[in-house]
């Protein structure tokens, strides 16, 4: 077994990648689903194994591809930060896969189903690859693997606008990835290396002679990745893409895709640039805080006025990403921990919310808020789970969202910006309005005739939803997995600075 354990980092990628190849040869949806289920089932165990090992030893795991030693060959480097993000992504994959069967079977034509699962597994492999690799160019390749799979998943939505959304996302996503690769190229010209750890050591001396290309690289990479993670105002692709994608794709992507991009931003800032670039001289963190605040308020306000339920949650995602980037930009221990905790909590809550909407669409075929009037009486468990996850999004005490906001608030106070705490609370009140609006429609209105026959979704869709709703509550009380790990990551990233 020790031989296998040594190869865990590469298996993390190979399992979904081989799964994708196998599903491409199947002709029936159920066979493809079974392969996807096995691959998604193995992935979290590998991530958990990596996280446990990294936490026990306190040392990063280095895996050298093809025996080419680190700065020359491609290195997979697992430390506490990416082991944690790997676990988030693979857990969402695991919890989504039982839901996928019925949801995909109704929304995707049967001859396209095997391809749908191929794209899902490629997307999973790409996202895990972005997170696990220690090589800047390799990260770009995985970024494009996951993105191309994502465009396809979105385009398979039933509404023809899904095609348009996928096309717009393709244009913007490619511009983002190309910006990132321009930045990597500039760094490579200056330092001659692509390895993140090696870059951190070589950029310091290079900074003395070539500071302009390095700063330009930083700008290109920041803007490029911000496009991918939908930082306000580069979020315009996200609402349509999430609104018209198939239910399962939306739920999976909302939990994972932006998280991988946020990880990449955190990696280049905390592990590469923070080491060398005098960030204090540049208002990078102030700019990102300002954009995060704009996301928290403007995207939430847009969500309040949105009529389509999935688009409402998509705008809410933009706002919630604002909280994560806010915490990371504070760049102190509690702030970074808060951002990381919220990555986990948001993945769980937002996936639960999209599962609930997907279940409603499965029974009724409807997605407009007003048409779902009275759904709370017809599908009580689904709606209750939606409300629990919604309360988490607001940050009500006793839910996971409260823990993230608690950390963020302490981070803001430690930064000396008490007013930021009021902004966090104020923006949470906006979430009360948009979640509250849905609750009012779902519970206090007479059921419309269109939903007269609606009832609870099949157990395979209901169970993942209920588990995630339960996790929202559980993670509001037991913070060892999220808060504890996030704090040790923050300690590790900030190198003992307060």
């Amino acid at each position: 077994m020790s031989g296998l354990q040594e190869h865990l980092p590469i298996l993390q990628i190979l399992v979904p990648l081989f799964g994708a190849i196998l599903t491409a040869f199947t002709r029936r949806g159920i066979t493809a689903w079974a392969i996807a289920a096995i691959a998604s089932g193995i992935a979290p165990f590998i991530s958990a194994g990596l996280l446990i090992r990294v936490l026990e030893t306190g040392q990063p795991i280095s895996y050298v591809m093809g025996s080419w030693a680190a700065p020359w060959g491609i290195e997979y480097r697992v430390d506490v930060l990416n082991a944690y993000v790997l676990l988030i992504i693979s857990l969402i994959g695991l919890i989504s896969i039982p839901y996928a069967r019925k949801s995909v079977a109704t929304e995707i034509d049967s001859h396209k189903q095997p391809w749908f699962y191929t794209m899902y597994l490629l997307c999973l492999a790409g996202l895990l690859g972005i997170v696990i690799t220690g090589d800047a160019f390799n990260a770009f390749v995985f970024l494009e693997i996951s993105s191309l799979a994502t465009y396809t998943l979105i385009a398979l939505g039933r509404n023809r606008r899904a095609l348009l959304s996928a096309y717009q996302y393709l244009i913007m996503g490619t511009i983002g990835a190309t910006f990132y690769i321009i930045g990597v190229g500039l760094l490579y010209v200056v330092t001659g290396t692509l390895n993140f750890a090696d870059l951190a050591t070589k950029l310091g001396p290079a900074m003395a002679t070539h500071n302009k290309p390095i700063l330009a690289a930083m700008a290109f990479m920041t803007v490029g990745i911000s496009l991918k993670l939908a930082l306000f105002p580069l979020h315009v692709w996200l609402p349509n893409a999430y609104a018209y994608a198939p239910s399962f794709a939306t739920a999976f992507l909302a939990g994972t895709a932006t998280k991988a991009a946020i990880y990449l931003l955190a990696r280049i800032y905390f592990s590469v640039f923070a080491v060398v670039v005098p960030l204090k001289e540049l208002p990078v963190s102030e700019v990102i805080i300002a954009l995060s605040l704009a996301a928290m308020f403007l995207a939430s306000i847009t969500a309040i006025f949105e009529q389509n339920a999935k688009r409402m949650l998509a705008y809410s995602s933009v706002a919630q990403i604002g909280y994560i980037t806010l915490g990371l930009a504070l760049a102190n221990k509690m702030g970074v921990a808060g951002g990381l905790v919220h990555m986990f909590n948001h993945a769980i809550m937002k996936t639960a919310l999209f599962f609930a909407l997907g279940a409603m669409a499965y029974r009724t075929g409807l997605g407009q808020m007003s048409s779902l009037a009275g759904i709370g009486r017809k599908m009580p468990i689904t709606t209750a789970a939606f409300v629990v996850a919604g309360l988490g999004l607001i940050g009500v005490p006793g839910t996971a969202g409260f823990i993230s906001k608690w950390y963020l608030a302490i981070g803001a106070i430690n930064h000396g910006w008490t007013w930021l705490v009021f902004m966090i609370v104020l923006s949470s009140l906006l979430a009360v309005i948009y979640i509250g609006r849905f609750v009012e429609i779902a519970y206090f209105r007479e059921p419309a005739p269109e939903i007269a026959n609606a009832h609870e979704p099949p157990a395979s869709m209901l169970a993942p939803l209920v588990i995630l709703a339960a996790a929202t509550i559980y993670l509001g009380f037991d913070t060892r997995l999220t808060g504890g790990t996030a704090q040790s990551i923050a300690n590790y990233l900030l190198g003992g600075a307060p």
Partner: protein
Amino acid sequence: MIEWEMIAYHYNYYITIFLMVSGLYIVIARGNMIKKLIGLGLFQTSVYLLYLAPGKIIGGTAPIYDKAYQVYSNPLPHVLILTAIVVGVATLAVGLALVVRISEEYGSIDEDEIFEQDEDQ
């Protein structure tokens, strides 16, 4: 005084930047979806030049380990760009496939016309 020598040494970078900016401009300014993809392709391709130009040393050979050769060009940028070309081709293929589907559904590939159609509903 214009530093001609400086410009001559960096002219490949000027061309790279010109291609980069014109590609990005086409993506933003054109409403025709195929033209947008052409601009996107131009934008991506210009980045290949950004990588390849610094890898070449005048008089340098391929890295052949032999006493006869002293100056080597770095082969790694070529390998990286080979990968980036594959990525670019795949992106273009997915983009064109989407445009074909959009054309089937909307009967147009002009963004403004398509947005108008969806507003009518």
